């Protein structure tokens, strides 16, 4: 019986070995056939090119499908407008981020000025106590400089997400609240002009070379300093323009502007007695022709 079993097993092993050899042979033959029929270099390139086109096409469709969801829609804008209408108050301003998000001008209440600047570190924001940052985070692409600049000079008081918009309120730690703005005291000279890449309400003087232009501002309340910015506006002429400030006939300082850069100045008036003073702005220019100058001047406490 055992011998019979052994012969059976032996026979079975031979059968299996034969079968395995046949399988191996068939596999070799199939491999050789496949290798002989392998795609040519051209075909490989063509298949790769077709796949590449397909991937780029599908990727573009996917990117297009994603884009609307990443940007604020009509409802988000309305919600932001309603929020600012409800919670905004005098002394507030709205900063948009990114700076091109000026669709906000259509929803922000008219009483709140909109600032569309990439950076805010050089902006004094006169008269502003609170800033609402109206941002589309998905569109920022890492360019959140405005928020970082605000965070350095303000406390983050409130943040709300409205769809694809984010509204964050910043309470400025040291708001610049001027005692007087010279532009308010000379409506005939005041204008909204572009200086330093932003709209500025400033006094516009058109100096005549060789003839000083003197503009009196009576009874201006003065405090610690007389500060502001000046820039030349577009026009003919390349002469530098000097803007001097006289208080009760005595010059307290001057700023010289030679190009369109928004040039800051701060003149010390702390040594003067507190109260109102007669201020004169004297604008002089050399050369043959001079460009108009845009002057922002604030009396700071």
């Amino acid at each position: 019986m055992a011998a019979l079993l052994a012969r059976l097993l032996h026979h079975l092993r031979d059968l299996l070995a034969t079968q395995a050899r046949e399988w191996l042979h068939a596999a070799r033959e199939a491999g050789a056939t496949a290798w002989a029929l392998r795609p040519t270099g051209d075909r490989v390139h063509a298949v790769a090119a077709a796949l590449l086109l397909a991937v780029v096409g599908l990727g573009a469709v996917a990117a297009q499908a994603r884009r609307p969801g990443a940007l604020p829609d009509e409802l988000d804008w309305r919600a932001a407008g309603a929020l600012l209408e409800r919670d905004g108050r005098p002394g507030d301003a709205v900063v948009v981020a990114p700076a091109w998000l000026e669709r906000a001008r259509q929803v922000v209440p008219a009483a709140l000025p909109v600032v569309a600047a990439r950076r805010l570190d050089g902006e004094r924001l006169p008269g502003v106590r609170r800033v609402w940052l109206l941002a589309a985070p998905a569109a920022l692409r890492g360019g959140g400089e405005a928020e970082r600049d605000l965070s350095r000079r303000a406390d983050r008081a409130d943040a709300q997400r409205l769809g694809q918009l984010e509204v964050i309120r910043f309470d400025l730690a040291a708001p610049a609240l001027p005692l007087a703005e010279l532009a308010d005291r000379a409506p005939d000279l005041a204008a909204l002009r572009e200086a330093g890449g932003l709209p500025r309400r400033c006094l516009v003087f058109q100096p005549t070379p060789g003839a000083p232009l003197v503009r009196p501002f009576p009874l201006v309340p003065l405090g610690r300093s007389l500060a502001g910015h000046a820039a030349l506006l577009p026009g003919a002429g390349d002469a530098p323009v000097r803007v001097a400030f006289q208080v009760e006939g005595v010059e307290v300082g001057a700023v010289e502007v030679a190009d369109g850069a928004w040039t800051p100045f701060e003149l010390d008036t702390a040594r003067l007695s507190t109260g109102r003073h007669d201020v004169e702005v004297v604008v002089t220019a050399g050369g043959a022709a001079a460009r108009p100058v845009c002057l922002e001047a604030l009396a700071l406490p």
Partner: protein
Amino acid sequence: VSSRRRIALAAGLAALAAALWLGGREGIPRDEAATLAAGRRVAGILIEAPARPAVALRALAALSGETGRPLLAEALHGFAAEAGARAGLGPLRGARLGAALVAALLTALVALAAFDLGGAPAALLAPALLWLAPRLATQGLLATPDVLGAPLWLAAVLCFGRSLEAPSPLRRTNAGLWAGVAFGLAVAVRLDLWILLPVLGLHWLLGRLHLARLARLAPPTLAEEEAAGPPPAEDWGARLRRIPTGLGSAATVGLAIAALAFPWLWADPLHRPLAALAAAHGLGAAPAVNPALLAAAALPAPLLAAFALGLLHAAARLARALRGDGGGTARQDALLLLAAASPLALAAAGLAPRLDGLRAVWPALPVLALLGARAIAAVAEVAWPARRHALAGALGVLVLYPGARALVRDVPLGASSYGEPIGGAAGAAALGWPRQDGGEAAAAVLDDLSAHAAPGARVLWLGVAPGAPERYRGAGLLRGDLIDAASPAAADLAVVARTAGSRDAEYQAWGALGSARAVAGAYLDEVPLVQVFARPGAWR
């Protein structure tokens, strides 16, 4: 009619119908306004010319000096606008009849050439590759010289190619002469297209070098055949000495045609052409964005991939032909590669004309569409021979669908469209790139303006082409009682199209209106393209 012609005819008619249909709504950029204004004057002068030729000549010279360019495109669009108006197409659509005809001609030409290169699949694909993108379709609607220059550039290239390949000497000579005429007309449309002449010269020079190499490689055979008597079929020496008719024709007939269209040059033919060429290539003026870079950012990514594939495929064919004996293929592919690459190379080098949008590189685009379509057809044929048409169709859909989708979404703001890699218009705005070509987006707020402006309101147009509001009014897109304001102080409403450069005028308008709050606007990817500001009470 052969299927080649049937496809070309159908594609051309479809392009004509689409251009006429869409042309009534698209905004007017500043270069189109300038072309139409000059075109009206040119047409008027030419109509009077038979009666007073000397006066007409002086007037044309003065006008070409004023515009600083040849006047062929202006003449075409001027006469076409007159015909369009008489045909009752309306002030806007009628003025763009010339553009619609040019689009149809270009489409048919591209289809014919693509059929010759890659058969019916390529002929069907190439026109779609050329037009199914917002920027390209929008440009095709406009009566500007740029799209007109493209078919002439392509025709000159194709005729030059045929002058080297045609089976009989007579056909070669005819094709060469037509190459010169097409080249001359192209330069008469846009002066910077003169670069085709050195491009053809370079092609000839490269061919000579290649022939010289072949001649050096095969001297014994030549000597034997020359000794035997009749000239050999491939007489390398004779071919080496021959100057192509197309090149000679372009350098003589072509330049003469171009000079005829630019009478301002006649008074001082030594100095003025140089000054005109320097101006045509924008020397001394920096472009807002390099047009080659702008093309890469503004076109849909799959379209760019198809164009790149077409260039690679042509380069591979050229390399293969140079290694083997495919002289004809080498000539053809080298010519198409040069014709496609030279405007792009010029733009990349900062020598392209200072034109808005993709206008500077337009001559390259039809050639790229041809090469792209041929490459897709070839890829499908090699990758899956048994299902080549189905695969070519599927690839075509994948390449064209994103562009078509963007086209449907962005019209009539197509000139503000940007591709996916840059993140659309929002990505471009973040980089400070141009938001539109020349104030054409103002057309998108005309409905609001007509619906909400107070009766008789005075409108200040900032960044909008002069003459455009009048055409909008004539086309019924703008209420007739709204009058144009000359200054911010005299305005009740300000329509501000956001273009590159200073915004001082806009801010002055805010100051004069007493409001910086927009009452209406047009946006693409939330990027403001145009906004309307109103004096209190002027917006209902």
